[in-house]
């Protein structure tokens, strides 16, 4: 898909004034957070499981080459075909070759972020193969020619009246007078329309939540059942998975499953957790005759051993974006590429370059909620800071910002000069505010004051007040900093 991350600021502004979007985003702010909280509170071992899940992925990543080899051996032994793809282009080509060999005209797809990352749908269509998304949310956005705005709730940016008008537009063989006012009616219609597609498809494509080295198994975790029909009914099943999806054993998958659904949707367990190992066995009455796995690198190996390695623990639960005030305000599309929210702000620069996505690690208040809820304990704010540093080192941020930071650094490295300068500036600003407590406009601060007032400082700096209080025997720290200057 096109990279629109450089236009983050314009996209975010447009999103903030989009009434439909803002109404839809209200559902994220309430639903996900409460449901996760309830599920987590009901499991006393949740935090210990997070530590366990983190340790499993750290161990796997440290031995990834060996687990990949072990996985490949077991998957092959079970009759599967394992393909290796260095890049998105390679993965698309491999999938196309499998589809061509199967004589495919239609492929069904389970929900998969990795096939969004490699932009598989547009490629298959250009090659004359029709991809049909079968997850309800993915189906809706495919009808609208959009991309997911959330990694587990792809159509969370839409309201039901929008879905209704899309269904009326596309399902024009159905009676115009039908009642689609309730979500249940929309779901029922999608179910009926998609049923025939599963049987018509020659190839079914899914992602994987886990690949298990011990058994050569791929696991998908879903609620709708579409992923299962996608991998069950066509003659060929293709799994596309990035290399960091590996876990050593079934027990390891089980540990991470305990934190996955709770963090994502607040369920103790998703409805369908399906372990697939190879193609149909002799005597089996159903199941695919061919089973392929495309192992994709696409930038992961260069994150290994870097300060971004921890990001490879991500299990795509979406908790970080569900709890992010920036995501709540602008939604997922503003981020301009496949992965939105805090995990996208870290992963996107790793995959497409910080030169194209520098706004994303800057689109954070550093409130820390993402890290606080991450089941894999990924230090997302820290890694956003790493990207900001890289951006600065490479001279990618705007000149005014760089000049300002340089100026600040000059003073910050000279504490006496810094204190002297602030002891002049703070009373001056306080005087300028003339007791109003805030500025509505201030030269050089238009970026701030255009949207909100800038609080004016107290008449004395923090350091001065601290000294006074310490001298007076009062515990300044207990009172908290007033007039942070």
């Amino acid at each position: 898909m096109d990279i629109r991350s450089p236009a983050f600021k314009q996209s975010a502004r447009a999103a903030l004034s989009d009434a439909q979007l803002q109404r839809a985003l209200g559902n994220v702010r309430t639903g996900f957070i409460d449901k996760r909280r309830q599920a987590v509170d009901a499991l006393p071992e949740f935090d210990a499981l997070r530590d366990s899940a983190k340790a499993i992925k750290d161990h796997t990543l440290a031995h990834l080459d060996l687990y990949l080899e072990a996985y490949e051996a077991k998957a092959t032994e079970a009759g599967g075909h394992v393909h290796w793809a260095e890049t998105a282009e390679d993965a698309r080509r491999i999938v196309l070759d499998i589809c061509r060999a199967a004589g495919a005209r239609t492929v069904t797809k389970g929900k998969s972020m990795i096939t969004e990352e490699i932009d598989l749908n547009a490629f298959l269509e250009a090659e004359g193969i029709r991809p049909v998304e079968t997850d309800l949310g993915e189906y809706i956005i495919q009808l609208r020619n959009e991309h997911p705005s959330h990694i587990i709730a792809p159509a969370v940016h839409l309201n039901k009246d929008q879905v209704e008008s899309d269904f009326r537009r596309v399902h024009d063989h159905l009676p115009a007078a039908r009642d689609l006012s309730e979500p249940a009616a929309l779901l029922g219609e999608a179910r009926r329309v998609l049923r025939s597609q599963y049987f018509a498809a020659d190839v079914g494509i899914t992602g994987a939540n886990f690949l298990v080295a011990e058994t050569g198994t791929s696991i998908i975790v879903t609620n709708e059942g579409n992923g299962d029909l996608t991998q069950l009914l066509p003659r060929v099943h293709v799994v596309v998975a990035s290399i960091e999806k590996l876990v050593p054993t079934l027990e390891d998958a089980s540990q991470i499953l305990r934190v996955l659904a709770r963090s994502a949707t607040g369920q103790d367990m998703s409805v369908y957790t399906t372990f697939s190992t190879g193609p149909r066995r002799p005597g089996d009455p159903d199941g695919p005759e061919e089973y392929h796995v495309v192992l994709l690198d696409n930038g992961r190996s260069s994150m290994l051993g870097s300060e971004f390695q921890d990001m490879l623990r991500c299990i795509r639960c979406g908790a970080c974006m569900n709890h992010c005030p920036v995501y709540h305000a602008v939604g997922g599309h503003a981020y301009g590429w496949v992965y939105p929210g805090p995990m996208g702000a870290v992963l996107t620069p790793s995959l497409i370059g910080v030169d194209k996505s520098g706004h994303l690690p800057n689109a954070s208040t550093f409130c820390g909620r993402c890290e606080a809820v991450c089941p894999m304990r990924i230090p997302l704010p820290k890694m956003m800071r790493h990207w900001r540093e890289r951006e600065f080192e490479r001279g990618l941020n705007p000149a005014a910002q760089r000049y300002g930071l340089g100026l600040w650094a000059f003073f910050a490295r000279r504490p006496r000069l810094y204190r002297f300068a602030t002891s002049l500036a703070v009373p001056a600003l306080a005087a300028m505010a003339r007791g109003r407590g805030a500025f509505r406009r201030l030269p050089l601060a238009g970026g701030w004051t255009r949207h909100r007032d800038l609080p004016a400082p107290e008449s004395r700096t923090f350091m001065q007040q601290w000294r006074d209080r310490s001298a007076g025997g009062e515990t300044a720290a207990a009172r908290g900093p007033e007039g942070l200057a």
Partner: protein
Amino acid sequence: MSARDTILQRVRTALGAAGGDAARSRAVAARLAEAPAGIVPARGRLDGKARTDLFVEMAEKAAATVQRVRKPDSVPRAVAAYLRGRNLPAAVRMGDDPRLAAMPWDKVRALEIGRGAADPDDEVGVSHAYAGIAETGTVMVHSGADNPTGINFLPEHHIVVVDAADIEGDMEAVIARVRAGFGKGTMPRSLNLITGPSRSGDIEQTLLLGAHGPRAVHLIVIG
């Protein structure tokens, strides 16, 4: 160099690991061989009746319905009662699972039983669970000559028979059962953990039951 070798080489370089490092290989081999269990929630360690009760409670929390019967012979009547109670036609689809086959289906008059892979028009499918997991109210079924996977997904109603003796407290115990049953490192083609009926929250985060899989999951617990 093949894509495979390139990727593996890149991974090794990034990790600062040489190809033939014996200590790393040993660590991986040991982990795969021993498959250490991690943290098992306390609620997964219940026994006997408490375990079955938790299984029922969690399954109902996940919107499954549960019926308890005393012995396998009671299952066909329970299935018939379910169909009548929901005004469904007296027809079910099931595989050739020997545990189901041994039940007295002939005692239920006019029940039509379809065998083999599921058909898109089937309204009700019947499976026998390989195991149950109490901590989440989950049933585990697997593919095989006698167990078409489509029965779990295509019909609108999925009835799953679970023997209380097969209900384990936690997921790890079920994994151990699979290992004992199929052999270490070997799996059936498809192993399905099912927790309640299919659902979607994709339209305005409104939770709706009955997405692409069954609208209703009915568990018949024996014992």
